[in-house]
């Protein structure tokens, strides 16, 4: 797609980007704290990543290389349309290779490949408030954050164990940041939770409809909440990838026919592709 110069660089005007950058800086200064910001209407529906797009627009530079992940994949609707949006409005280079990207916007996944200090990972967040479904009053949850009253978060985990025998929360698993704020890591699978902590890249979280930005600076301590007798476990499907044979990556289950046939493949398409190019082969590879 060609660069459309009718727009300001990366769609948003400079004052808006400045406002968002201030919120980002505040978020980085207070890791895990939800900073309110004046979220703008974006040319896409709420729930499609309006928060992530605004954060990306604020951090993108003309020399950046941009990658978009949707559930680990580079080729799904959300990923393709956001990628072309910034191609058109910012004219930045885009890529599907994790290691080539300097800004990565993601929905529901953290790349398998370890990120570096030169990269920024931007998350799309539907509901930034981890206490939302336990305490509907926003005034009350804000007070609970400021007074560090997080007993309620464990009530949710307690309910999980009492109903299912184990902590059944498998995505958007609550974490505690730097021993202070409880944070919703956006709906990433809990398999990705251990990658949040001590990550060399900057992690930014944007919630457009809810008008909140929060952030994790590099090498931040992030602990998943649990009970002493029911410790946190980063779970995944117990199979190797059918295409590349990887045993350490998060897998999607794909139904292949109506005879019960199924295929487990890496959800991170770039990771899978790299492995296959390097000669790894899974049992279902053609």
């Amino acid at each position, binding site marked *: 797609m060609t660069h459309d110069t009718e727009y300001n660089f990366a769609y948003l005007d400079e004052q808006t980007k400045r406002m968002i950058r201030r919120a980002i800086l505040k978020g980085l200064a207070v890791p895990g704290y939800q900073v309110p910001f004046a979220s703008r209407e974006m040319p896409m529906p709420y729930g499609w990543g309006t928060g992530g797009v605004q954060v990306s627009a604020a951090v993108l530079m003309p020399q950046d290389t941009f990658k978009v992940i949707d559930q680990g994949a580079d080729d799904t609707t959300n990923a393709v349309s956001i990628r072309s949006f910034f191609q058109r409005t910012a004219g930045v280079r885009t890529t599907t290779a994790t290691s080539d990207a300097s800004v990565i916007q993601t929905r529901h996944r953290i790349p398998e490949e370890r990120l570096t200090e030169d990269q920024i990972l931007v998350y799309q967040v539907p509901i930034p408030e981890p206490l939302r479904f*336990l305490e509907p009053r926003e005034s009350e949850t804000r007070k609970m954050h400021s*007074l560090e*009253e997080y*007993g*309620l978060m*464990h*009530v949710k985990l*307690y*309910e999980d*164990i*009492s*109903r299912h025998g184990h902590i059944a929360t498998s995505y958007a698993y609550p974490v505690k940041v730097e021993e202070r704020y409880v944070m919703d890591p956006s709906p990433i699978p809990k398999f990705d939770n251990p990658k949040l902590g001590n990550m060399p890249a900057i992690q930014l979280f944007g919630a457009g409809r809810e008008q909140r930005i929060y952030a994790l600076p590099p090498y931040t301590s992030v602990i998943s909440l*649990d*009970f*002493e*007798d*029911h410790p946190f476990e980063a779970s995944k499907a117990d199979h190797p990838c059918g295409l590349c044979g990887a045993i350490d990556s998060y897998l999607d289950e794909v139904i292949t026919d109506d005879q019960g046939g199924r295929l487990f493949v890496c959800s991170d398409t770039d990771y899978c592709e790299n492995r296959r190019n390097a000669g790894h082969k899974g049992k279902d590879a053609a």
Partner: protein
Amino acid sequence: MIPLLSVQGISKYYGAHIGCKDVSFDLYPGEVMGIVGESGSGKSTLLNCLAGHLPPDEGQVVFDTRTDGPRDTVTMSEPERRMLGRTDWAFVHQHARDGLRMGVSAGGNVGERLMAVGERNYGDIRGKATDWLERVEIDASRVDDRPITFSGGMQQRLQIARNLVTGPRLVFMDEPTGGLDVSVQARLLDLIRGLVRDMGLSAIMVTHDLAVVRLLADRLMVMKSGRVVEAGLTDQVLDDPQHAYSQLLVSSVLQV
């Protein structure tokens, strides 16, 4: 002996209207104080001021804390006050729905206060929750049921269990038996009386039911138009009321 709670000159105004005016009393450990009066007499306003839910306009509420001795809870910082609210204090609402989380299981409701003060062992929390359900006469097999499936009386007992699990020293009760039928009321009163005596609790109980205070309260305050018009031992006030309004109140009770 130091009073557990010493209330001095508490006033609360709603604009020009008086909520409660110049209320003072001392409550000693193990004592149950009843507050009676008609609707709109300022009972609930007073109770909410004492429990830190409403900021009073004048006066002091001095509570004998475990660690630092007597402290004015009106001027103490909000985190400290909220900490008291989930450790040494308990608040039983008239409507169990106000005091329970209806979407969370009975065990989770009881365990919430434990988790709020830092318990992180599932087995222990569940054990204590089950134990408390039995103490308030709820079958342990219902530990995973939501309070929405409970009857009104059971909900009220669950609310009491949830409040007492951290071993508070002072319980605020706002018409704990309101809206329950008489036989359920009687069982609940019996239960509360047993718990108060066993645990050596102090309690402040707001009610308009004189039978309830007769059973539970050691001392009684009668309120009218935001002011305390008469105070004394329960039997003394009920059997020999001095103030005209107390006399009216006592004589209004239907004799069956």
